[in-house]
């Protein structure tokens, strides 16, 4: 595992250098006007972030559900060749449940993005 540590170390040091390189090499001329937002002159969000549409929340939930199910599929796929056709029956039930959940979410209107 020391290899993994070395990979993280080298990439991390490189990333930190890149983040800090402007602080070291760049000019330092600051003034109040420069610090104002320039994006079409819209005022910046003070200390609060306005509530975000609930759709993002729903997407996050669906992702959580389906991604956990994907994780369960990986070990099954790994041993599928060894076990053979019994594995097919076990997983047919599992994928059926997954698909039913998917169809339920669809019919409930979870994928209506324009509403």
């Amino acid at each position: 595992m020391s290899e993994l540590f070395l990979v993280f170390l080298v990439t991390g040091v490189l990333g930190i250098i890149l983040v800090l390189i402007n602080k070291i090499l760049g000019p330092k001329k600051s003034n109040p006007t420069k610090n104002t937002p320039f994006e079409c002159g819209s005022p910046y969000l003070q200390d609060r972030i306005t509530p975000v549409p609930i759709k993002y929340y729903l997407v996050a939930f669906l992702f959580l559900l389906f991604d956990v199910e994907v994780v369960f599929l990986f070990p099954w796929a790994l041993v599928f060749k060894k076990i053979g056709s019994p594995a097919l029956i076990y997983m047919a039930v599992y994928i059926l449940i997954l698909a039913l959940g998917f169809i339920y979410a669809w019919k409930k209107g979870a994928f209506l993005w324009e509403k």
Partner: protein
Amino acid sequence: MIETLIVLVKIVCALVWFLLITLYLTWAERKESALMQDRIGANRANFFGIRIIGLFQPFADAIKMAFKEDFTPSFSRKFLHDLAPFLSFFFTGVTIATIPFGDILKIGGKEIKLQVLDINVGLLFVLAMLSFTIYGVLLSGWASNNRWTLIGGLRGAAQLISYEVALGLSLIGLVMVFPSLDFSAIVDFQGELLFGWLPKWGIFLQPLGFLIFLFATMAESERVPFDLPEGESEIVGFFTEYGGMKWGMYMFTDFMKVLIISCLLTTLFFGGYQVPWLYADGFRFPWGGEWLLPHGIVVLFQVLMFNIKVFFFCWLQILLRWTYPRFRYDQLMDFGWKLLIPLSLINIVATAIIMSIL
């Protein structure tokens, strides 16, 4: 000690290859788009008057970015503002370590594997690291404290997690065919032959899986057909408040993702470093011919083949980027949830049924 040194040299080589090709991808993209739009493209940068079709452009850009002023807006969340580009860069950068560039190279009695990290969960490692890049996108939108960047960051997060599911599901079929999560083992499986003449590449066994994987990874790279988080003409993007090298890191991460996607496509679906009919001692053609080669040349062929395949996919992605207009948000989400996920489920079931019949 010598082992650690070898690992360090391998890491540095892989990173230098990764970053150099990424630098030149920026040039390639400008040139290819210029070609497609009947322009000349970047050709002004020169080195003591030598231009060579603008080949020094990426270095000029990098030097310019390095000498920009460090700008952290006064209204931003300072630490997170610095942290976000680092996270994006770091988690994309570490993925290159798991990609096998070639088979074992023997030098002076030592056997060196041309792969930095030979871990048995390489595939899951890469998927995990690529999902971590969501934090870079989301944090930059959040930390900049600007409403457009926030919208960009949220869109980016929603898009990345939507396609994450399809990405995972599309690889299940592949793992069933090549029962391993280790990249070098997957590439080894692809060295075999189908019907005695066709290379047993993933594309021939998993054509549907390949297509789903291609679209899902392209969505993950957030480039034009799927560039909702950036959306130049509407919200300018989650990195609006960044400048200098920190902005450069985001742009760099984009191209690094293009490159790592090409590497993944090559490794998983196009046989990685495998050259058709090339074995450890040379070519053995299905029609009976033989062409024996020394060990060094074989490894050279493998590394060259890997590079050629990777460059092909980089070219393909740039071509797609400059061909298609941007999706609308609902089209994008529909494409991910209503098309790719059902298709990948069908792919898994079909693969399972075909494999248990055969």
